[in-house]
């Protein structure tokens, strides 16, 4: 039921003939997106006192996640080495679903407790929303990771 022919570590693109390596598309697009976002950072005035150094730092930091994001979008999964043909039928999909559901519950609980604490604590109403949102993202990552690892190790 599987076709392992011509599978590669980073896979091929589902765009066009399907023979182009996915990274051959992802890397140039990722670099361009990173560069454009660095220009936005300079324009927004968050790139620091030296715009060239700031833009270079932003471009370097954003090029990798941008490349990986484009790779995910253009990748033909069936061309990826070791990828299961029916991932939704695999146990990893069950772990993912259970861990995500549990993490959502944790985040709701934590957000409720944090909202109560910020309301009651003096100066809590002035909490920086960027920090709060980063906390929510961090908590969801941590919760998901722990839950997934527990499910994996107990399987």
């Amino acid at each position, binding site marked *: *039921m*599987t076709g392992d022919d011509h599978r590669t570590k980073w896979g091929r693109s589902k765009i066009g003939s399907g023979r182009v390596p996915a990274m051959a598309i992802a890397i140039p697009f990722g670099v361009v997106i990173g560069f454009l976002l660095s220009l936005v950072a300079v324009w927004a005035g968050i790139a620091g006192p030296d715009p060239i150094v700031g833009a270079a730092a932003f471009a370097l930091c954003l090029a990798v996640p941008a490349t990986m994001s484009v790779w995910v979008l253009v990748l033909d999964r069936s061309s990826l080495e070791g990828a*299961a043909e*029916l991932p939704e*039928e695999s*146990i*990893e999909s*069950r772990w993912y679903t259970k861990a995500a559901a549990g993490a959502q519950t944790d985040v709701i609980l934590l957000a409720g407790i944090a909202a109560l604490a910020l309301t009651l604590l003096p100066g809590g109403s002035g909490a920086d929303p960027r920090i709060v949102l980063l906390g929510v993202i961090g908590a969801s990552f941590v919760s998901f990771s722990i839950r997934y690892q527990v499910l994996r190790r107990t*399987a």
Partner: protein
Amino acid sequence: MRNVVAEHRKALEWSQQKLADELGVSRQTVISIERGKFDPSLPLAFGIATVFERPIEELFFPEPPE
């Protein structure tokens, strides 16, 4: 749910990876099914029955009532 997937796989002298490849799932999925830790979906159970050329009820059994 109990099953005799491991027995049928060993009768064919297949590795867990070979069965996983035939079914299009990960090896960990086969391991968990054989240990009874993961009940496969109905389509996957039918896939297993097809691979072993056995009716599904010869491979999977409900747990006996306690």
